[in-house]
């Protein structure tokens, strides 16, 4: 090799040589460091970054499922879905415009006649700092700018697509109520999902789209999961601008199942109309502020109709209810129409409760064959108790005691059984036979109906009294000491009375006293029941002693009819009463609408064709007018329906409620009434032969529903 002569003394060269070796070494070290870092990222950490990559460019889009319909037993649509035109915007497309879509929104605001500002607010994504109006959903879903748009307006938007890039007008599903106000409380309504609901329900969380609604009351709430179906899921590949590049996977939504109920909307309408008319008749003598009517199928606990007045049209919930309407829905002036009196209302049952008291007496040794004194008044434990209207009946059978609704017979039973338990100071465990029997009839606990917020009512006894005393003692004792100075200013004698009462409650409030036991026997005092509880109890008497959990739902049917799942009746228990007592009660109740307290109300009713059994009730409550009850079932010889009618502050049972029940029976059996037996005409019954449908309406594979002919 030729080497040019070099002057080795050149310092630059020596230094250069050494420095260049160093530089080459540095290159190796630095680039090896890069390679090591590359290895770390791509081998041990690869999985981590792959996951990040997937969340980067995969967007999941939830496709909501069509909510199932609610049908009555013959297949009539009670709640369905309708489509409404709405205008929506593609969030990303508008954001991508040079002016952020302002020009488009401004044109749109003229067409929709909505201020531009509002549209811009609705385009914002909701967040911790962005208050409504804003878009609560995902930016990958069309952002709703206007709901329930008129057809011509929507058409304008669709036809001028090139003027409105990123804007679409399309149909959207909303709930529809063809029967308006009928059965409003039972059906319930939908409202947007709350954070709490999202946290509590997993299926909501995994399918949440940001605009979901859930059933908030009634059947919509109880059967929300079934009606909701299963949302579909589309996984989209997107780029850094959020533009959709392809569909990676797709799971189609499964429509919610239809809910077939035991309800018959014709009976429901008749019940509501009869109730409204009956309440109107009771006025102005009585306030008749609210009322309920329950029609149960005694053979399985099916709820054929359930009316509660005042009612409302669930359609008000659509498109977001404003605060003012919502407040009025809960206000007392408006009669609290959201409240179902049948399920959530509690009232003293009055004489309708005597079936329980009679059962308690008989099961505790009082003979069905004996006769019992029915004086005009009785004096028990130093206090006098009067019969209704003060009339005495002499010595009567228990049957007559039911038919004529003799209170004094039951006062005696109540007092005697209280004494048996040791009166004020029981030794050992008292039997509480009256309260035990009431519980056996299903009172004091929810019936288990498939509706939300059901009340349990109240069956008071010694234990309840003690608990109540313990809870209120502090207040009572302080009042006993300090008195009622604020009342004394205007009414010193009332203040003195209240102070005495407070003292009594403070010292002796735990005692279950004779007068309470006596009131209990005729369904007064602290006894409270709901109309549904009473209906369920009378249905049990009618069917020979089986207490069913009432059911509104009859079957779940898939949207294409492929699956039919009947909702089986559920037995809550058997009445703790012998068959003999039950048939004795049945005989007594059968007589009431003929010769007894409801005889007048059923005058002219063709009892030879359909015999009615029932019991009136007129219950007092402090500071309120008498509440009117009629509890019944029919036909007496082959029971099918139990009907209970309540009119709060509506007068006596025989005068107000029995005629309402009569009208419902007439509707079911197709009698047109004129008040005279000979004139009764057999019209078209609401239900074929007066029996509920045994078969279910058919849902065809194409989704259409075959209604059963009445």
């Amino acid at each position: 090799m030729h080497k040019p002569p070099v002057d080795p003394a050149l310092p630059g060269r020596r230094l250069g040589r050494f420095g260049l070796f160093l530089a080459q070494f540095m290159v190796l070290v630095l680039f090896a460091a890069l390679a090591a870092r590359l290895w770390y990222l791509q081998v041990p950490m690869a999985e981590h970054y792959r996951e990040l990559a997937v969340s980067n460019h995969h967007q999941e889009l939830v496709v909501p499922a069509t909510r199932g319909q609610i049908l009555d037993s013959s297949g009539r649509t009670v709640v369905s879905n309708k489509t409404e035109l709405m205008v929506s915007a593609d969030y990303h497309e508008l954001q991508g415009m040079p002016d952020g879509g302002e020009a488009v929104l401004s044109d749109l605001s003229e067409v929709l006649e909505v201020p531009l500002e509002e549209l811009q607010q609705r385009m914002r994504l909701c967040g911790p700092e962005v208050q409504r109006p804003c878009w609560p959903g995902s930016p990958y879903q069309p952002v709703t700018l206007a709901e329930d748009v008129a057809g011509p307006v929507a058409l304008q938007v669709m036809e001028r697509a090139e003027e409105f890039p990123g804007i679409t007008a399309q149909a959207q599903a909303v709930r529809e109520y063809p029967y308006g106000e009928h059965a409003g409380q039972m059906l319930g309504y939908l409202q947007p999902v709350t954070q709490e609901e999202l946290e509590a329900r997993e299926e909501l969380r995994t399918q949440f789209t940001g605009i979901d609604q859930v059933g908030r009351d009634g059947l919509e709430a109880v059967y929300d999961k079934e009606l909701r179906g299963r949302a579909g899921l589309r996984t989209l590949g997107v780029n850094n601008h959020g533009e959709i590049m392809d569909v990676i996977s797709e799971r189609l939504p499964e429509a919610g199942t239809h809910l077939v109920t035991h309800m018959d909307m014709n009976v429901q309408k008749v019940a509501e109309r009869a109730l409204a008319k009956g309440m109107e008749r009771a006025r102005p003598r009585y306030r008749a502020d609210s009322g309920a009517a329950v029609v149960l199928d005694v053979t399985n606990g099916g709820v054929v109709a359930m009316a509660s007045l005042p009612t409302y049209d669930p359609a008000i919930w659509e498109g977001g209810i404003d605060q003012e309407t919502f407040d009025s829905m809960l206000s007392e002036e408006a009669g609290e129409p959201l409240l179902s009196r049948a399920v959530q209302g509690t009232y003293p049952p009055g004489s309708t409760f005597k079936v329980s008291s009679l059962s308690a007496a008989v099961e505790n040794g009082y003979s069905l064959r004996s006769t019992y004194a029915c004086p005009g008044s009785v004096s028990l434990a130093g206090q006098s108790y009067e019969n209704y209207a003060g009339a005495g009946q002499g010595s009567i059978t228990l049957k007559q005691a039911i038919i004529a609704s003799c209170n004094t017979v039951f006062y005696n039973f109540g007092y005697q059984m209280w004494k048996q338990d040791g009166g004020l100071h029981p030794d050992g465990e008292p039997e509480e036979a009256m309260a035990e029997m009431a519980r056996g009839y299903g009172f004091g606990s929810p019936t288990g109906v498939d509706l939300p917020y059901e009340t349990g009512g109240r069956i008071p006894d010694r234990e309840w009294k003690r608990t109540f005393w313990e809870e209120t003692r502090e207040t009572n004792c302080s009042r006993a000491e300090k008195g009622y100075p604020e009342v004394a200013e205007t009414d010193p004698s009332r203040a003195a009375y209240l102070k005495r009462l407070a003292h009594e409650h403070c010292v002796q409030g735990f005692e279950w006293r004779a007068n309470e036991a006596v009131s209990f026997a005729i369904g007064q005092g602290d006894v409270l029941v709901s109309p549904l509880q009473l209906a369920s109890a009378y249905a049990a008497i009618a069917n020979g002693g089986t207490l069913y959990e009432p059911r509104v739902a009859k079957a779940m049917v898939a949207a294409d009819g492929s699956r039919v799942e009947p909702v089986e009746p559920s037995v809550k228990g058997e009445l703790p009463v012998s068959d003999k007592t039950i048939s004795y009660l049945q005989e007594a109740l059968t007589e009431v609408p003929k010769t007894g307290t409801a005889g007048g109300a059923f005058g002219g009713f063709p009892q030879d064709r359909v015999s009615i059994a029932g019991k009136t009730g007129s219950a007092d409550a402090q500071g309120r007018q008498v509440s009117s009850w009629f509890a019944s079932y029919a036909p007496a010889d082959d029971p099918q329906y139990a009907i209970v009618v309540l009119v709060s502050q509506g007068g006596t049972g025989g005068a107000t409620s029995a005629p309402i029940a009569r009208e419902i029976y007439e509707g079911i059996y197709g009698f047109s009434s004129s008040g005279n037996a000979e004139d009764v005409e057999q019209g078209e019954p609401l239900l074929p032969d007066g029996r509920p449908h045994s078969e279910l309406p058919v849902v065809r594979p194409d989704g259409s529903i075959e209604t059963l002919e009445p």
Partner: protein
Amino acid sequence: MITNMGGPPRRRHDLGRALTTAAGGARRLDWVLISSVLALGVIGSLLVWSATLPGDGGDPLESVDHLLRHLAHLGVAWTVCLLVAALDYRTVRAYAPIAYVATLVALVLVLTPLGAVINGSRGWIVLGGFQFQPSELAKVGLILVLATLLGEPRDGETRPMTRDVLFCLLVTAVPLGLVMFQPDLGTGLILCVIFLGMLTLSGAPLVWVAGMAVAGAAGVFCVWWFDLLEPYQVDRIATLVDPAADPQGAGYNSAQALIAVGSGGFEGTGLFHGEQTHGRFVPEQHTDFIFTVAGEELGFIGAVSVIALFTVVLWRILRIARGCDQPYPRLLCVGVASWFGFQTFVNIGMGLGMLPVTGLPLPFVSYGGTAILANMLAVGLVLGVNSRDRGFEF
């Protein structure tokens, strides 16, 4: 020392003669260096092609606009490279001051209405649909003039003296100031590194070398202390510590780059199949962030090959430098190696989340005509040195 080279210099100054000896010189070209640079160019073309495909997939053959332009850039650059390689470096040296002054003029023109702002930096001259970046050429100009100044000690001196160092400092400061005025922090850093690298290996007094290093560190400190950096530059450094801290802000680039590289794994997704690349999640992925495309689509195997090719390129350049008897050609190679080494390390380090985001392209690989031309010009200079000044062989 000049007389040690095969002939009187005045004969070499003849351009025509120089070209006629090119055939003889070709035998002495560094073919390892050439093939490594060529390989990087080929890989770069494929990556640029993939990185510029439209997002919705489709046939790569239908969107070749960027690829064709890139290939055209490469063609021009390679031609220039081979022409320069054929020239005697002493001829080039004679023109060094002219080249340097020309780049200064271009850097000034950038600041006139002829200049255009691209990506926040006034670094471009646009002339009749043609745009180029003078700061890229300034790197070459600076290397040439510094090699001349440091590599030619005056009579009686064997190495650069304080006077030379001070003059070099001035020579560097002028383009540095113009570049920072754009502002282009990346190129500014490169100019400093070229100066420091060449000064270190020039044989200049060690006290000067150490002093410059200290001054450089002090400069960085001052920049930080007196808030001389643009806010976005501070953000870029801050997010380097934790790219996930603000994924949609300044850390977005870093975070997305890591995702792209990391998700490629050992084998990569295959060319044209990178989901991150085609979703355009990494910004500037055909220029500054081209390495992330290699990371995602070619995987560890491909990306580490790119790193290896750069190692070979630098090794060879430094090897040529070691072979030089004369300070001028050696410093030429040192300047080029400092430039390529620093720029490559910073670019890849940025793609791997090790270094802050500075807008520097990856030599030979990134899309960009002026950058590639400058790179190949530098390679041509090195090749020219190699074919004429080989003192020894490995």
